[in-house]
């Protein structure tokens, strides 16, 4: 069973489009995250949610809007996609108070 699963794995889209990435975890964790990994492999946190409540919102353009319908799901919606949004986006989860975070396989977003 996949612990943290993201869909889709690959996403190619044109500039200006709106797209969503979905994430689900079956670990019973209460905290979920979105990370962006750029072409230089640098991993930067974008958002984190605890029990559906936003707790970390780094300086991310407001074209990015996370949504957590329940504590097992955290989706990322991106409006008006730009070339610079091309990256690999990772979802992760953990248990608040515990330190280990589990990552999904990533979604490679390519904006053309």
């Amino acid at each position, binding site marked *: 069973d996949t612990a*943290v699963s993201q869909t889709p794995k690959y996403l190619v889209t044109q500039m200006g489009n709106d797209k969503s990435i979905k994430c689900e975890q079956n670990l019973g964790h209460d*905290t979920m*995250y979105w990370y962006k990994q750029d072409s*230089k*492999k*640098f*991993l*930067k*946190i974008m958002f*984190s949610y*605890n029990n559906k409540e936003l*707790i*970390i919102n780094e300086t991310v353009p407001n074209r990015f809007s996370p949504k957590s319908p329940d504590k097992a799901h955290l989706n990322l919606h991106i409006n008006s996609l730009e070339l610079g949004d091309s990256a690999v986006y*990772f979802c*992760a989860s*953990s248990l*608040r*108070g*515990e*330190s*280990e*975070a*589990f*990552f*999904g*396989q*990533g979604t490679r977003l390519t904006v053309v």
Partner: protein
Amino acid sequence: QQQVKQSPQSLIVQKGGISIINCAYENTAFDYFPWYQQFPGKGPALLIAIRPDVSEKKEGRFTISFNKSAKQFSLHIMDSQPGDSATYFCAAVDTGFQKLVFGTGTRLLVSP
């Protein structure tokens, strides 16, 4: 203050050699220091971790050394194998804030 500095950026080691990756942090609120291993096309996976009240932790061929006063920690991979070839990230966690900050990554290549 939220940065974690990691070096070297890339490392080539012969099979059977020792791989050493170093990290330094500034924020004294960090209280958990994991290392993640990432293979191409995969998400980061926890390799080994240490808390600041311990100076060393060993799991198999992997050892973390931690120097609290210098705010530095390092990963040693003994008897490096070609299967260890991957990108390694150090990280630091402020468990109160549930924020995981990554280093810039080290691409390790173990030559046969």
